[in-house]
């Protein structure tokens, strides 16, 4: 269980958690405890896949606000996952 350097990483976590549902946030607390680390990667990747899969459906149904929220969540998940993967590889 590794965690990238603070500050920029903390900002990524804050951005992501502000958009995430209470249920997933609770799962992350159970997985990682006090701070998000590499143990969260499988769940974060799963959330990214779910959100990406949902976007075309939202687009097709013209759910503009939901699509915007999905895009924001994806935009916050990608750099967070990248930061954690980089840390895992080092």
């Amino acid at each position: 269980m590794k965690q990238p350097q603070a500050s920029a990483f903390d900002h990524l976590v804050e951005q992501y958690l502000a958009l995430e549902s209470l249920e997933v946030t609770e799962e992350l607390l159970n997985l990682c405890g006090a701070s998000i680390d590499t143990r969260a990667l499988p769940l974060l990747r799963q959330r990214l896949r779910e959100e990406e899969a949902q976007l075309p459906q939202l687009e097709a149904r013209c759910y503009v606000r939901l699509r915007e929220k999905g895009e924001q969540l994806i935009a916050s998940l990608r750099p967070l996952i990248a930061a954690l993967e980089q840390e895992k590889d080092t």
Partner: protein
Amino acid sequence: VLGECNYANKCVTCPMWLTSTDDLPALKSFYERAVRLRQRAQEVGNQVVVQQQTHIITNLTVRLKSLEEPEADGALSLDEWLSQLRTDLAEAESGLEEARAAGLLLAAKHLERVISELKARLAALEGTNR
């Protein structure tokens, strides 16, 4: 709260979030889940989640109170109304900046309309206050 949205915690800070007394049960459930999550975050020592849930709980408390005590609105004096409208206007203007920065065009348009309406109401009320 009731729709398909998976990001329940996002509504609380959304300037376009509209609720009525019909939403009270769902809002109370939301409040209780946020309290439980904050408790869990405190147990594991996750300060980010504690802070975010505290913010959500504070906003929900205000909203629940305003829905449960609607008679308080009718008791506002003219000065209190003006003060409330100025606060709403400041929040809407701040929300507009955020919406523009995030590229949320529909939200920005909606907020522009809200700001126009608030300004008109303020102007009308200020006229009666002179």
